[in-house]
């Protein structure tokens, strides 16, 4: 019984979420093999073999130099058929979301995504994942034959220091057969759209606004409050989708992850996509008229009330 961890790397740099997946794999208790795909990934392999894992599989192929869904799902299908692991773990990154379901479908195996925890209960692996945008959690057991594939939410494991091995892990190269004409995606190089005007990850204080603001005109009130607080303005995704604030003000799984000293969530329900981006804030204040809003689960201070009344009152209180 082995657990296969699929590492993620970009341009020869290991994505640190890989270490979270390794930690989760170690927690399950079976021997851990880490597989890394790409071309020219020696430095990534060098880093991986230092970790406290049993084996590092290096799959190098010119067809894998740039990520494609077809290339990666076909290569990993071959790796998994050859190595026969019990469990395959990945981090729930944009890349994994792009290829892992195709990989599961090609193998005819179950994939469970976006898990926050794994535990052994009565000899069975139980995975926990959010549902209904974080309003509920579900404990899930996987059915059907091995291997099972699982992705874990970014931040599911806290890794402050990489667990290093006493000696180097076994390192093995594995070849795959990929005909480039079977890879249907033709990617261009990634690019940044506009210069990122604000780096929210560096902000000490953030005032974030959500759908509760109802319309673009009301943002002026929030801007005034942010100024009074000496804080950066941020928003949940729907506000940016509507074009009321630029995308670089977005906090959440598809925006920035922040960890300020003080975070105000105004008219934000606390859907999981937002919470994952700000739950690391030291002090969280939530104002929402819905007492059942999930945001109150992670708030240190809360006011159940109308933000259109509370925020002006706070601006006034700060002025005094």
């Amino acid at each position, binding site marked *: 019984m082995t657990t296969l961890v699929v590492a993620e790397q970009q341009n020869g740099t290991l994505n640190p979420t890989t270490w979270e997946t390794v930690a989760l794999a170690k927690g399950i208790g079976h021997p851990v093999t880490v597989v890394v795909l790409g071309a020219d990934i020696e430095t990534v392999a060098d880093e991986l073999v230092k970790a406290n894992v049993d084996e590092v599989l290096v799959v190098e192929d010119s067809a894998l130099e740039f990520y494609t869904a077809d290339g990666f799902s076909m290569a990993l299908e071959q790796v998994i058929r050859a190595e026969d692991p019990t469990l395959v773990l990945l981090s729930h990154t944009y890349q994994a979301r792009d290829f892992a379901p*195709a990989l599961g479908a090609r193998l005819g195996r179950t994939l469970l995504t976006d898990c926050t925890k794994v535990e052994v209960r009565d000899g069975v692996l139980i995975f926990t994942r959010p*549902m209904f945008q974080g309003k509920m959690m*579900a404990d899930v057991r996987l*059915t059907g034959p091995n291997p099972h594939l699982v992705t874990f939410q970014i931040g599911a494991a806290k890794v402050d220091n990489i667990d290093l091995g006493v000696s180097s892990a076994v390192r093995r190269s594995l070849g795959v057969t990929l005909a480039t004409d079977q890879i249907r995606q033709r*990617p261009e190089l990634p690019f*940044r759209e506009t210069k990122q005007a604000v780096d929210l990850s560096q902000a000490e204080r953030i005032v974030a606004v959500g759908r509760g603001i109802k319309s673009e005109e009301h943002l002026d009130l929030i801007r005034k409050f942010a100024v009074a607080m000496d804080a950066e303005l941020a928003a949940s995704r729907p506000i940016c989708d509507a074009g009321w604030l630029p995308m670089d003000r977005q906090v959440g799984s598809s925006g920035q992850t922040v960890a300020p000293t003080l975070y105000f969530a105004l008219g934000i329900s606390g859907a999981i996509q937002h919470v994952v981006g700000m739950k690391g804030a*030291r002090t969280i204040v939530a104002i929402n008229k819905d007492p059942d809003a999930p945001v*109150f689960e992670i708030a240190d201070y809360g*006011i159940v009330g109308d933000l259109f009344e509370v925020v002006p*009152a706070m601006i006034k209180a700060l002025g005094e």
Partner: protein
Amino acid sequence: MNIIVCIKQVITREWLVRVDEAQTWIRDQDASFEMNEPDAYALEAALRLKEQHGGEIIVCSAGPVRARQVILEALARGADRGIHVVSDDIPKAGAEVVAEALANAICEEPCDLVLTGLQSNDQGFAQTGVILATRLGMPHATIIMDVQFDEGKLRVKRELEGGLFQWVALPVPALLTIQSGINQLRYATLKGIVAAKKKPIRTVDTEMPDIFGHEIVKIYTPEKSKQTHFVDGTPASAAVELIRLLRQDARVL
């Protein structure tokens, strides 16, 4: 260009979800339902492509009888015809089962594109679209923020992490999962709602495929990771007290 849009009916965002008696699902008998918002963005993307290139939009939804409502809504917004795979098992089903049901319903329909939202707001697997693509033998791309179709060539803009984007070319037919914010949603006009009633909806009664997947052992409200200090009173007094707490208690001001 012919486009198939797969849309799911989900419980409304505002609905107060409560665990059912068995504690393996939620109570949804009298709940309010709506079109899954990411799928609404996929529909809007299809409507805009149709405006540019002509063609037909088929909307497909798998779900109980009540899911017909989201098909009607899509027709009211401008889709041309609908396919309803009727099944009470869909809401709780795994992505593999839903993808199989959708695949069986649409595999005979010629198309250039299949669009879905990137994930559903109920189970949130973010898998059904990609599994469907594999099942249909189509290439796919996910979390798409722009679709360009020029002289039979498809080029799409993937959203990546960290504010990055990437254009990818794909042959057609292809499946795309669409990210929210790709466009601004339109809502049905009265004229559209009336017209929708005359548009054809093909019903597919199907037995759910017996595909293994996963089993929910228990559903529960999340454990609170911290004790929230609620500040009561009028907005004015609560505001004053909150500022005081942040200054003196939390010492963050």
